[in-house]
């Protein structure tokens, strides 16, 4: 049973100003399911629509972004809600933070610079549960962050007084305050150094292991997925090209883009020359026809130029969209 199912989602940015209108097909026909108790990784190069996908499934659709078709259904076993149609106030009251919470990139800027950390906790808790007793509340928060291995000092600090890794972990602590069933993390460790990244991801993983909730982890760093995710989905230019359990993705990738992604990763101890993809990333305002990867694909065929490849199941949990693997044949 899926906790979140996305079906044929299309979400575009449409901007119109001074006579120039532009539609960015940022998410264009995406379907997938999230299951309870898993870490689901989303990878893909910059601007392929990862953040947009997240905005839609977390109910943050604001102009110029608009969902044009498809559905996003959240089902926690007790209630089913359609994230595309739910009213903002209902969303705020029932879903946000209680069911689904969010860890954003750029921890530096997500915390209010003029408010102490404890105040941010207070704002969130107050808005959802109300605070009867400040002392009890503080004890609860302290207990929570201690459980996550953070010192209580951070509560009295201002964001700028904390190191980058610490801020990012505070963001995780905030996201797990109400033990939500789904935690969405969009590039939580980009721009952190490897040591800090490791600390942050470890914490996320520990929390998941403990609470058995679902984590949707977005990053373009394949090595991170290799170490953290259970399943990985690869996006290219607004579409899913491949989805499989982590091991499968790394051991037997099928899509040429996935293959390239994995083979180009440098490793300490290996010095063989790695090549980069030719061509430049697609423009989503005017995406290539057919398979969107075809202009850069070393194996492109005629059909790739004209027909959009369908998503096919290769194995039980391995899907891929490529004309080369049509009909389950390799």
């Amino acid at each position, binding site marked *: 049973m899926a906790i979140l199912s996305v079906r044929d989602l299309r979400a575009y940015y449409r901007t119109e100003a001074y006579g120039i209108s532009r539609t960015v097909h940022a998410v264009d026909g995406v379907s997938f399911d999230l299951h309870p108790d898993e870490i689901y990784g989303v990878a893909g190069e910059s601007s392929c629509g990862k953040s947009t996908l997240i905005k839609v499934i977390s109910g943050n659709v604001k102009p110029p972004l608009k969902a044009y078709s498809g559905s996003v259904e959240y089902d926690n076993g007790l209630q089913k809600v359609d994230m595309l149609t739910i009213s903002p106030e209902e969303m705020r009251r029932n879903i946000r933070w209680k069911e689904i919470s969010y860890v954003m990139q750029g921890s530096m800027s997500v915390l209010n610079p003029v408010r102490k950390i404890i105040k941010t906790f207070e704002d969130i808790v107050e808005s959802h549960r109300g605070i009867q007793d400040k002392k009890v509340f503080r004890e609860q928060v302290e207990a929570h962050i201690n459980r996550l291995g953070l010192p209580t000092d951070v509560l009295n600090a201002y964001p700028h007084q904390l190191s980058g890794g610490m801020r990012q972990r505070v963001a995780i602590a905030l996201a797990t305050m109400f033990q939500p069933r789904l935690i969405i993390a969009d590039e939580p460790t980009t*721009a952190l150094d490897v*040591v800090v990244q490791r600390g942050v991801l470890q914490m996320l993983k520990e929390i998941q292991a403990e609470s058995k909730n679902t984590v949707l982890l977005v990053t*373009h760093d394949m*090595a991170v997925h290799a170490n953290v995710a259970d399943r990985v989905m690869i996006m290219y230019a607004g579409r899913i090209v491949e989805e499989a359990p982590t091991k499968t993705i790394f051991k037997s990738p099928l899509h040429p883009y996935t293959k390239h992604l994995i083979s180009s990763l*440098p490793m*300490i*101890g290996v010095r063989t020359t790695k090549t980069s993809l030719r061509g430049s990333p697609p423009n989503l305002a005017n995406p290539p026809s057919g398979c969107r990867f075809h202009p850069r694909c070393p194996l492109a065929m005629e059909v790739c130029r004209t027909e959009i490849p369908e998503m096919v199941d290769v194995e039980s949990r391995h899907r891929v969209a490529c004309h080369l693997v049509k009909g389950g044949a390799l």
Partner: protein
Amino acid sequence: MSVDGNLFDVQNVSVVFQIGGLLGGVKLVAVNDVSFTLSREKAEIFTIAGESGSGKTTLSRLLLGDLHPTSGKVFFEGRDLSEFRSRAELKSFIKKVQPVFQNPFETFNPLRRVEAYLFDTAINFGVANNVKEAAMVVDHALQQVGLSLAEVSKRYPHELSGGQIQRISIARALIPRPRVILADEPVSMVDASLRMEIVNLFRTLRDEEKVSVIYITHDLATAYYISDRIAIMLRGNIVEAGPVEEVLERPMHPYSQLLKESVPEPEPEEKDAWVKHISLGVTEVNEYNQVGCKFAGRCPHVMDVCRQADPPNISVGPRTVKCYLYTEQAREAAGHPEMEEARK
């Protein structure tokens, strides 16, 4: 050490920043007693790696003459950088030392066409005398990075991909025919597939154009992939430096070891080392102001002496390590611990 013989000669430089609050600020030693050289003869890629806030950018600003050291000296081709006063002198210096910045989208003014910078560089440094000549120079530079003027002209930064801009940025740096390119985290903002494009370019520049590259990064995998030498920084200090294979394959300083171990391997199987729990500092300033070894707080091998005074720089083969574990006595007592580490 012959000062003349080297391109860059960094001698015991320290940079102290005054930061802190209403009631008594603190001194922050962003770069502490750092020395290294870059040879004039042989072009090489020299990596400076280390965690965030370890002083890498500060060091690069020193090398670019953008910041003067609180103590110590930086020599370029035998001349003390702090003695460059006139615009002409500075200009002839920056002609030879050119930067490439971290964020490709920030490198160029979003409201200007990118080629303007290329033409400016060509004309300002006297590489070309007029726009026509400049166009040839610019086109040549762009060819070196796999682009052409035709592709680039009349474009604003947002009309180009990150990889393209970063290559243009390198092309710009190449126009005055510099001896050194200082690249401060040139790939941290680009995604994995573009990363290789850039670092491959550095390799080509070194091999074909004989341009040295100071490559600042915390991405040890690419550092290993392209560089000749590496220096690992921790809180303002170079804790370990030497040939890249030696340092990264067999790190000696406990911090280098931690760093290496933290690099996530793109191998879903080998998770054990990475998963081992680590602790992080709460604030940066605390660690900076710690007396003795800055890593003492997190080091698994910490000794009393580590908390008392700065460890010395110890040469071990071709590399130097700043750690008490490798003093003469310690090595004798432990029976060559570096061999032990290397076995691991």
